[in-house]
């Protein structure tokens, strides 16, 4: 688990916006993951998606990493910002787009 946690730490540091999800952005395997990707696409920032179904060792590690029991999980600038409900709520409040655009430097 320690190695996987280190890899996660590197992923969220090296990519400005990362989503850990079930399936891929083109073929999400869960409604919550699909809804989260939908919001990120609507805002139009580049993001890295990691399919925890294809990397099962990350499925439990990511929950430990963030102390968060569910997937998807979104990281911006190395920081965990929430799952599907929080991402949708921040988007509805107009808070998500500025955060993401600031993180990707545009």
């Amino acid at each position, binding site marked *: 688990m320690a190695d996987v946690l280190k890899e996660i730490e590197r992923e969220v540091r090296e990519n400005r916006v990362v989503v850990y999800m079930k399936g891929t952005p083109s073929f999400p395997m869960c*409604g919550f993951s699909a809804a989260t990707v939908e919001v990120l696409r609507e805002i139009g920032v580049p993001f890295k998606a990691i399919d925890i179904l294809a990397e099962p060792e990350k499925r439990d590690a990511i929950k430990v990493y963030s102390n*968060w029991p569910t997937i998807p999980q979104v990281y911006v600038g190395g920081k965990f910002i929430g799952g599907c*409900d929080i991402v949708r709520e921040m988007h509805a409040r107009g808070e998500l787009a500025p955060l993401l655009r600031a993180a990707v430097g545009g």
Partner: protein
Amino acid sequence: MTSPEEIRRAIEAALPEARIDVADTTGAGDHFDVTVKAAAFVGRTLVEQHQLVYQALGGLMPRIHALSLRTTAL
């Protein structure tokens, strides 16, 4: 599987003054919409608020397939 009543009781045990609404969205006991309003959320981020609820749900979480959560500080 679990029930709205079990979910409510688990949250109440951790956040006794919270106002809690639980809806079983499919009627099958595994998809729920949960709204929690609590004074304990004041000064906490949304992530921290949700973490408090997840901690309260603890052992129920593996029995819930899908949980939509909305938290508000009172």
